């Protein structure tokens, strides 16, 4: 993470508080997250928070999509649907913005960081839906192909 970007630095300082708040409320974020043991939940949430920090520094949407697509695929392999994943990611962003507002109230950095985190959450939600729509299009294609083969099989 860039050491020169003040907002990224402010976020880095707040990360432990954000992590703790998310761990405390993890069962409400997502029942399946609530069932994980603390070390596993901590690792999963930390990965999201770390990436968020990098994204705050780089603004690189391509890299952000990379992370999100990986995150979605991994959660899908754990039988987690995309709506639940989206809700979790939004909750992480919301919590980070809330902590920024609480801890840095009155400071310029606080206001800017809150706004940036809120925009990042909106970007995240948009990107997740785009990725899900792509996956949906792939499966619709697969369905159409299978349905055609099945019809051919029935008519022969």
């Amino acid at each position, binding site marked *: *993470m*860039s050491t*020169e*970007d003040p907002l*990224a630095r402010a976020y880095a300082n707040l990360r432990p508080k954000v992590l703790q708040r998310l761990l405390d*409320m993890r*069962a*409400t974020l997502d*029942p*399946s997250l609530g*069932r*994980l043991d603390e070390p596993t939940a901590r690792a999963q949430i930390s990965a999201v928070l*770390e*990436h968020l*920090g*990098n994204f705050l*520094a*780089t603004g*690189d*949407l*391509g*890299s952000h999509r*990379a992370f999100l*697509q*990986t995150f979605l*695929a*991994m959660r899908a*392999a754990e*039988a987690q*649907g995309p*709506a639940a994943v*989206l809700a979790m990611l*939004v*909750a992480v962003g919301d919590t980070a913005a809330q902590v920024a507002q609480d801890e840095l109230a009155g400071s310029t950095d606080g*206001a800017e960081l*809150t*706004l*940036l985190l*809120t*925009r990042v*959450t*909106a970007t995240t*939600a*948009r990107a*997740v*839906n*785009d990725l*899900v729509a792509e996956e*949906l*299009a792939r*499966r619709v294609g*697969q*369905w159409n192909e*299978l*349905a055609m*083969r*099945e019809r*051919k*099989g*029935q008519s022969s």
Partner: protein
Amino acid sequence: MTTAQQGLRVAGDTNVGKVRTTNEDSMIVDPVRGLYVVLDGMGGANAGDVASQTARDAIKEFVMQRRLTMEPRALLEAAIQHGSATVFEAAQQSRERHGMGTTVVACYVVDPKRAVVAHVGDSRAYLLRNGRVQMLTRDHTIVEELVDRGLLSAEEAERHPYKNVLSRNLGAKPDARVDLVDVELKPGDRLMLCSDGLYGYASAEAIQYLLGSGDAPEHVARDLIDLALRGGGGDNVTTIVIEAPQPLPSSTQVVRTSGAIAWWQHRARFLQIARDRGLPKNPIVRGLDPEEALELVANSLCQAIFHDLEKSTGVNVWTFAQNIAGGWFERSGEWAPLRALMDILATSARAVVDEIGVADANLGFLLSVAVSRALVVAELAIGGLLADRLNRVDAELIKVHAAMQETILDGQIDTSQDSALEDTGDRFIDRPTVPFMRPDRPVSGPGVSSELIAAIEKTITIARGRTSPRAELVKQILASLETIAIDATGNFASAVIAAREIYGIRSVDDTGIMPLFDALDQARIITAASVHQISAPDAMRAKVLRALSGAHQRLVGATTGLVLEAVAPYSDRLREVQAKTGELRDAVAKSERKRADLERKWATTIDNSQPWEKRGTTEW
């Protein structure tokens, strides 16, 4: 119904749903005593409503009588246990009600700042605070208990086929283990109690937005019911909404209201920007003239944001996004136009907010955050619809895949290049199997004297005569029963061989298996009736029935054994595929760690003088 108690506002509502014919839910809304309870009954032949009403009345009576002499937690726990004992006793007294039970979730409001919540089963309590909903209860299901004991992982729990089977309810035993939680109520909090007919048919996000809408509890309760009905309404649904006294307007709310006003005052500008960015040309509004398109879409969003700003909620934007996207998807619309439309609205809204910010930086900041938040809410609503579509497409894929299995086995589809279509054989054909041997089971039959054999043969002859000429399978079963009954070897080989012949070739699904068991059951009824018709003393008839029933039981057991053999490969293949998924996950996780390390390194080299959204250029 809405009532007030010490500044609380409360409302409850219930509905039978769209599928059931009886409402087995019941509730208590008792503001005088501060007691609010939702119950969801279960049990065949309408015993469920008896169970929930019996428990409801018992709990209410107990609280009425003891509330002045017991401490709140102890009172609620004891009341629920009394309910369980009452239901259990009622179940013992009537055969038809044996096994009936009910779930319960209860809230006892001690004062406007304190409540106790108790539950048994999977009816739930939620708390809305500062716009976020959290569950106060954890479902008492077998799966959750297995996870708690470390016998099931979180991931296995997600996939578990019986994840809704309860581990606790009122009435199964005289006493019940009750979970209790103390809740400190803060101004503006909302508690919601509900049966599974709500959360089973409505998304968590939608519930959150409705609960946080700021509308009066009776409207919220009714809207929650409507939400469940729109989601399918497959079960009875009941909900009670309890609202703590509202806080006094704060300075934050005053600023929020000015933000809403400023936003509204700029609506013409918003519409203009949206028009300039091409909204009227978007395929979603094709056929409408530009003014209509702007009114329908842009103005609706403008109003939604205004109302949400006023009330600090997201329900209006949520509803807007659901309506637009839902309507488009129903017309089989593609993703790209919807994304383009949402982007036009987003950039237009941001442009307006930037203009407001030039004149008033604080207001601009507030509105920037609010608009970003609104866009998140819209994406959440759309995300829910996308996820539903994905589930439906997956279900269709599975259906087509299953239908293709039949065609594959007939050799009509080439599967050589598609491993997803391979299967291990749905039909029990000529695979030699070891007979279903049970050497540990004693020969329990009455012995096979020649007299008994003759009586058995007579019985089967009568049974054949009672069987319809077209019921070939039943006749085959009767013949098998005769063979098995007179087999004195005791190793059940005859039962297995007979089962194989009867099973024949059939698909491993309900259509294939049900006729088999229907025929076995018919044979049972005919055989039993025929035994009563043979001319023999009662003692001999009893021996014949014992022999034939024993044969029947072995045949049925062997047949079930064959079904279990036929389904075994499905589990095996699933395990293989799951192992491969595990390996892939490990590979992706390892790769992601490497990518994240590089990303971190790269972040330190980034040029921060560039605007944020122009810094990185990774393609993905």
